[in-house]
């Protein structure tokens, strides 16, 4: 049994101005200790996917309209509020994008770590929770003497370490990191990634890494799923995606990254913009921008095709199992 198994998830934001189809039928599986990179442009539905695993979609307007999310065999999409509360922070934890705002400014960092420990450990004394908080701070490389300090006394990278300490304090089986390094500068990014990688291995935590940075993915992920307009267009192992890129969108993504080995004057971005998720085109959502689009692409939504074991592409080009 997989740790996490998402089946045909559909999430819509139902507003007065129309229904925004943020996530349209995605399937994901994650085994224990594995790291999945969820890659896509802004607005592709990455964060919505993450929030629906946590059941934190703001409702209204958001709604999981279809699909199941199995976590250790339990369907999270139908779980009650209180049962869900026990899972959040304990078995599934989340790291937010901006460490500057993810910590409560009026509570010392030590207390913020101790809080989650206390919430999820029955009958633990405050002293033990504080001790655990101090240990966690040391683990993420912050002197435990600073646990009485407030978030504003820490730098951005240090704050993200605190956030990581909070997320890992209860030893979750699944960690969802929503662009954990986007708000940090490059050198700090590297440090934080290294720290997360080390801790992930140490605690054998499975992780979903949400990012739009393929460099981050290459560094830390085992599996990759590329999202476009609420669907996963291509997924597979890190090697399959990076070395054997199939989907035109993924190819476009790689083409728009500068390559150190070749001297080029201009990058080749993908033409056009992502469609408005409130008004998705018929057929394949990528077809208006796709250089290989044919008639069928504008009419029919493509099926998921397994081009090699574990490597799934959602594109008409591979329909007969043949190469493009």
């Amino acid at each position, binding site marked *: 049994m997989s740790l996490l198994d998402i089946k045909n998830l559909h999430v819509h934001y139902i507003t007065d101005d129309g229904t925004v189809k943020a996530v349209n039928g995605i399937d994901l599986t994650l085994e224990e200790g594995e790291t999945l990179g969820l890659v896509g442009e802004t607005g592709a539905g990455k964060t919505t996917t993450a929030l629906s695993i*946590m059941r*934190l979609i703001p409702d*209204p307007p958001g709604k999981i309209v279809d699909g199941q999310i199995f976590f250790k065999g339990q369907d999270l999409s139908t779980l009650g509020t209180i049962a869900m*509360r*026990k*899972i*959040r*922070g*304990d078995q599934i*934890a*989340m790291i*937010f*994008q*901006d460490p500057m*705002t*993810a*910590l*409560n*400014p*009026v*509570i*010392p960092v*030590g*207390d913020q770590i101790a*809080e*989650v420990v206390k*919430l*999820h450990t029955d009958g633990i004394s*405050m*002293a033990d929770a*504080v*001790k655990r908080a*101090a240990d966690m701070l040391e683990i993420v490389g912050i002197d*435990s*003497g600073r*646990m*009485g300090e*407030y978030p*504003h006394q820490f730098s951005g990278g240090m704050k993200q370490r605190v*956030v990581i300490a*909070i997320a890992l304090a209860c030893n979750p089986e699944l960690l969802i990191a929503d662009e954990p390094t986007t708000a940090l500068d490059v050198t700090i990014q590297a440090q934080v990634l290294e720290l997360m990688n080390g801790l992930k291995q140490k605690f054998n935590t499975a992780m979903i890494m949400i990012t739009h940075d393929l460099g981050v993915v290459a560094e830390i992920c085992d599996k990759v799923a590329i999202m476009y307009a609420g669907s996963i267009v291509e997924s597979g192992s890190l090697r399959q995606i990076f070395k054997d890129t199939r989907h035109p969108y993924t190819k476009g993504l790689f083409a728009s990254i500068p390559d150190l080995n070749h001297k080029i004057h201009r990058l080749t971005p993908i033409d056009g913009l992502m469609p408005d998720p409130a008004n998705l085109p018929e057929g394949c959502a990528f077809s208006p921008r796709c250089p290989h689009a044919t008639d069928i692409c504008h009419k029919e939504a493509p099926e998921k095709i397994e081009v090699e074991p574990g490597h799934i592409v959602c594109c008409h080009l591979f329909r007969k199992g043949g190469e493009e």
Partner: protein
Amino acid sequence: MANNKNNGQTSAPTVKKRSQLQEMWRRLKKNKPAVVGMCIIIAIALMAIFAPYVTPYDYAKQDLKATFIKPCAEHIMGTDNFGRDIYTRIVYGARISLAIGLVSVTIGCLVGGSLGAIAAYYGGKVDNGIMRTLDVINSIPSLLLAISLSASLGTGLGNAMMAVGFSSIPTYARIVRASVMSVKGEEYVEAAISLGASTKRVILRHIIPNCLAPLIVQTSMRVAGAIITAASLSFIGLGVQPPTPEWGSMLSTGRQYIRTHWHMIIFPGLAIMVTVTSLNLFGDGVRDALDPRLKQ
């Protein structure tokens, strides 16, 4: 080092709590007007508590042979139309004014604050229901509302507190609602929910402490406002009843003699002004001192 660390861990909570207060106190001390305001409030409060010991006369005792005495050594603020010592009455009046201020503000703060927090957190229909009801209350001028409440409930100290407190509920609800709405959208609130905190915990521990600054300022201003409203009620005869000394009713009596006996109206007026100003200065100072983002 290891020893150090252990010390830090075991004593951390107590050390931290104390240092937080110390930190606030350190910053408050730098704010001279706030310190002056605080000293005056403490002085007034002490005088009110120990009123029998700091006053030479009985506040209700009339001495018709000694009416309208100008301030002199025996009666430092003079006497009123019944020969009662005005200084004594002002000191006793501070008891009433401070009590009304504190109790009515507590009523308004607790009721209004909870309503505002609930409205903002749940939003939608709950928000609409609560806020529109409060809008109706708010559409009545607060003094008029206090007057009509006093008139219908009857005069007296308790009812005056109720009336003043009730009329401040909408203001509190609005302030708390506005700050809760802005804090609710913060990522750390979402983070707290994502860590499995219950709704009650999220509101009480993560949202409310971040809304305290405007609430504290408002409270200190409102204590001042409540004192004025209560004085106004007494001034028109709907608040505390004679012979209980109340600054507002003293003003009201003094008004009749304003042309001939200035001291009867100056001193109660000064008492109100000094108290209200000190409260406002102190409130501003506390606001600045409490905000950890202003910490150096």
